[in-house]
């Protein structure tokens, strides 16, 4: 496979992936730092490079509403948003999943107001973690590109039929330029294949009602069916990731282990911080410190078994959350990982760290110090700390 090497920001990479997926409909509203994605995509539409109907709606609520209408009509449908935009979509995000519509959304992670802030944290997508969407986090622009392509396949899989959110870290990935390997258009098309919806609204000879009211007699069963779809997605995401790897030499799983198998101290993280952590781990390994990383690529469905297995031989684990569950016991990643480990006989000592809210920098020194603290026992197990904040 001849890949094409390009210099792209995360937003450019996601827009390019969208172009190559060539969806039937994109409905979107501009919001920093995701604006560029649909801005670039609009140019593709204006230049006739895609077959897409672009609906420049008047709000994110309408963006997701239009995506729902479009996907229910059997059209391959995508959108992009961030932060307040995703928050405004929130009601419709649940409906998209509840109606089992394979919409793919690029979400550029950004903090939520107030105070207003345009920089990265994961509060926006974490706010939607229980909505029934599949959540895939990207470490860099390359993964953002690859994930967007795989997302379409995962969403449309007959055993899944759920919307997928692919995230990048706002500004860090969205605006940082990187070298990425891209695929020829035809290869992307070949990979995602032709979409054949089971039923759709434009099939006027077979009228059906979607979005009917469910009372006490059916609602529970339909919600339960979503859980099955999420469980099915665990397998489908791995299959799609493996097939992607077979074709394009980059394997994707639910999690990624970096020097984890023989690690004594490890951190668990999502997104761009994993890249920083990998560099630190390389340096620590040279000094003889057995440090490792567990990167969670897929946060929903939560890969419980794989995470428990990956951490069972580690002595000490720090879970990094780039969002907080205010008033709760740590951020969502910490509570989930800790909960997953609870029933495990061989479980590590674990501590939660909330970091980087509103784009606060996390640098190599901080991560190195964190590893050394874990190693030296300078942490309190089963506690939550705030990293890099003036207190």
């Amino acid at each position, binding site marked *: 496979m001849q890949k094409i090497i390009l210099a792209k920001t995360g937003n450019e990479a996601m827009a390019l992936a969208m172009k190559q997926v060539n969806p*039937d409909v994109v409905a979107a509203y501009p919001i920093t730092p995701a604006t560029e994605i649909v801005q670039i995509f609009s140019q593709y539409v204006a230049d006739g490079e895609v077959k897409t109907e672009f609906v420049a709606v008047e709000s994110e609520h309408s963006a997701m*509403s239009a995506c729902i209408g479009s996907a229910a009509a059997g*059209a391959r449908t995508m959108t992009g948003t961030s932060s307040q935009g995703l928050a405004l979509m929130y009601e419709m995000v649940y409906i998209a999943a509840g109606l089992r519509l394979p919409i793919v959304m690029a979400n550029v992670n950004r903090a939520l107001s107030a105070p207003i802030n345009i920089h990265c944290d994961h509060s926006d997508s974490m706010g939607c973690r229980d909505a029934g969407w599949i959540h895939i986090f990207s470490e860099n622009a390359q993964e953002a590109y690859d994930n967007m392509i795989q997302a379409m396949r995962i969403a449309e899989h007959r055993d899944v039929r759920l919307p997928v959110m692919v995230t990048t870290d706002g500004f860090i990935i969205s605006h940082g330029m990187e070298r990425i390997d891209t695929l020829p258009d035809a290869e992307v098309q070949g990979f995602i294949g032709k979409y054949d919806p089971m039923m759709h609204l434009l099939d006027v000879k077979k009228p*059906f009602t979607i979005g009917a009211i469910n009372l006490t007699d059916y609602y529970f069963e339909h919600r339960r069916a979503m859980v099955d779809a999420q469980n099915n997605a665990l397998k489908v995401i791995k299959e799609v990731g493996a097939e992607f790897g077979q074709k394009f030499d980059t394997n994707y799983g639910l999690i990624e282990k970096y020097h984890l198998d023989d690690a004594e101290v490890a951190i668990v993280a999502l997104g761009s911080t994993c890249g920083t952590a990998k560099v630190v781990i390389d340096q620590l390994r040279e000094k003889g410190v057995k440090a490792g990383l567990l990167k969670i690529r897929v946060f929903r469905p939560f890969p419980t078994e794989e995470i428990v297995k990956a951490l069972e031989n580690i002595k000490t684990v720090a879970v990094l959350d780039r969002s907080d569950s205010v008033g709760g016991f740590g951020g969502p990643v910490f509570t989930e990982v800790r909960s997953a480990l609870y029933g495990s006989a061989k479980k590590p000592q674990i501590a939660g760290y909330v970091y980087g809210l509103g784009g606060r920098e996390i640098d190599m020194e901080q991560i190195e110090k964190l590893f050394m603290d874990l190693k030296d026992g300078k942490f309190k197990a089963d506690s939550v700390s705030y990293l890099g904040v003036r207190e």
Partner: protein
Amino acid sequence: MANLKELAARGDKFTGGHRACAGCGATIVARQALLAAGDKPVVATCATGCLEVVSTIYPYTAWDVPFIHSAFENSAATISGVEAAYRSLKRQGTVTEDIRFMAFGGDGGTYDIGLQALSGAMERGHNMLYICYDNQAYMNTGIQRSSATPKGSSTTTSPNGKKIPGKVQFRKNLTEIMAAHGIPYVAQSVVGNWSDFTKKVEKALAKGGPAFIAVLQPCRLGWGYPPELTAEMGRLAVETNFWPLYEVEDGKYKLNYTPKERKPIDEWMFQQERFRHLKRPEHQALIAQIQQDIDARWDHLNKKCSL
């Protein structure tokens, strides 16, 4: 335009067996609108509200056309997406039929929470007909005031009390707001005049582009009158000039009906529970004020129609 016999022969696309109240005007709106679409395939959507709730109780449906409901404030945005999908797939040749798109919403889902989505859809020029069945309050949640609720009407959030006699404000004129969008077709119609309504639906669909029809829909529960009087309540609203029948086609205003002799507004109001408290003598001035407003609006509309 189809006559009654032709309409009746078409067969219902909004069928019986739904759970609407006896005498419900909303279901008449849906049934007649789909009849008026004739043989052309229609995809419909509906805002959350009475019409949706009574017609789609899973696993049943009263809609014999493809139908989607997603939320309360977004039937215009939802159908925008369906219509965009249609344009895309038609261009690509995967859909071949000539399909029409209809969105329904009550006054709450249209005048209030859905106004933004509606305005956006109209501005973007989607080929769709939006029909607002205006029963003048949030009937589905138990008769709360909306911006379509007329002055003096008692609702559960604008009750007649010791100090305040029902809703204080006059209703919003949504039809004029829609006309200001400069879309190809805007009209007002009423439950109780099938011919006026179905003609307008036919016209709106034939016209192409975005179209909007506000239909005054008497609600026997929220208004408080015997169920057999629904059509009568609608007609009387027209005879009192409370609800003029008119249309705005490509910006040109046209009055479709002028009462031979305008009836006083209290003739319509006092048949309804929601205005009953205004019968008391101390509210005469308020009735006079309401009448004055109706007359002024009528004069204003007439001027527009004579331009």
